[in-house]
């Protein structure tokens, strides 16, 4: 009368452990692929925001006027001839954040108020990019010697004509991005 005999304990254990192993493998594979796609998605969004900012700087820089170009450590200021951007000088600033990070800010700088107006009002900026690992401007300068290569400078002397080429080096917390190098009038 053994016709309805069930599984033995051993059989059951082997089956359950096999099932467990297969499930764990499957779940870990799924998790890896989900992680990859999430990080891809985040990187894509991040890239997109960087590209948007680059487009803004490119638009402003390619229409810049020759006057009013100023450089201070890690910031550039110039007047753009683009009507869409207004006639105020534009200022792009790499500002250090709180946690050893950087942020890129964008200001439209109003003309200095008269001395009677007391302290000038606080500038209202627009945060273009936050959580940056690095943010640095550079300026291409050709030395007098014809045979030497042009050099990237961190600074630009005041009163001199603006450089033909500028660059913006950015790194997100994910890592460095290729340099963004701009010539006047586009390339």
């Amino acid at each position, binding site marked *: 009368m053994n*016709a*309805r005999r069930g599984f033995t304990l051993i059989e059951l254990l082997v089956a359950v452990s096999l099932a467990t192993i297969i499930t764990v493998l*499957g779940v870990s*594979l799924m998790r890896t*692929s989900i992680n*990859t*796609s999430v990080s*891809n998605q985040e*990187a*894509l969004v991040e*890239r997109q925001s960087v590209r948007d900012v680059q487009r803004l700087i490119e638009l402003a820089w390619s229409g810049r006027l020759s006057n009013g170009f100023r450089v201070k450590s890690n910031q550039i200021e110039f007047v753009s001839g683009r009507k869409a951007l207004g006639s105020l000088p534009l200022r792009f600033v790499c500002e250090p954040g709180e946690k050893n990070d950087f942020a890129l800010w964008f200001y439209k700088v109003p003309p200095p108020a008269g001395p009677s107006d007391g302290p000038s009002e606080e500038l209202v900026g627009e945060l273009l990019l936050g959580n940056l690992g690095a943010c640095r401007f550079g300026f*291409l300068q*050709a030395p007098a010697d*014809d*045979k*030497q*290569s*042009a*050099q*990237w400078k961190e600074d630009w002397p005041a009163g001199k004509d603006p450089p*033909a*080429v500028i*660059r913006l080096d950015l790194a997100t917390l*994910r*890592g*460095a*991005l*290729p*340099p*963004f*190098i*701009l*010539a006047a009038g586009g*390339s």
Partner: protein
Amino acid sequence: MNRRHFLWRVAPATSGFARAVAGFTVIETLVALTLLAAAAGILLATLGASSRLVRDVRENETALWLARSRLVEAAAYPDRPPPEDERPDRYEGVDYRTRIEYREISPVAEVDVEQVARALRLVEIRVLVSWGARPANLQMTAYRKTGPAAATPPAPGK
């Protein structure tokens, strides 16, 4: 009697005892497992292919970005060697190698060579970027006027 059931096979009633459930045969189980494995394999292959595709697109975009920047950099002063950059071009764990080539475009022989050469000395600047273990590459080209002719264009009229 041997009645059919849609899920399991019913053993012929050899004894007077009730029908016993016979279960699947080994062949059936193997076929089912093989199908399952094939399906899982196809799913995984699709996932892998899609993530590889996304990575390829990102690398291509990075290379395009880099090439464009390097081209603008080199084309700013076409008659000098390209500016040096001490930082390695390593982005998202991939190394990118850049090579810049200059080629002077010689004017066509039939026309007044002297005049054309003075008016238009062209340099072709080509940036080649390659990256990855499977060498992928990309190139961009720009043309620039160069030399003293570019600095002082001949006066119009006359």
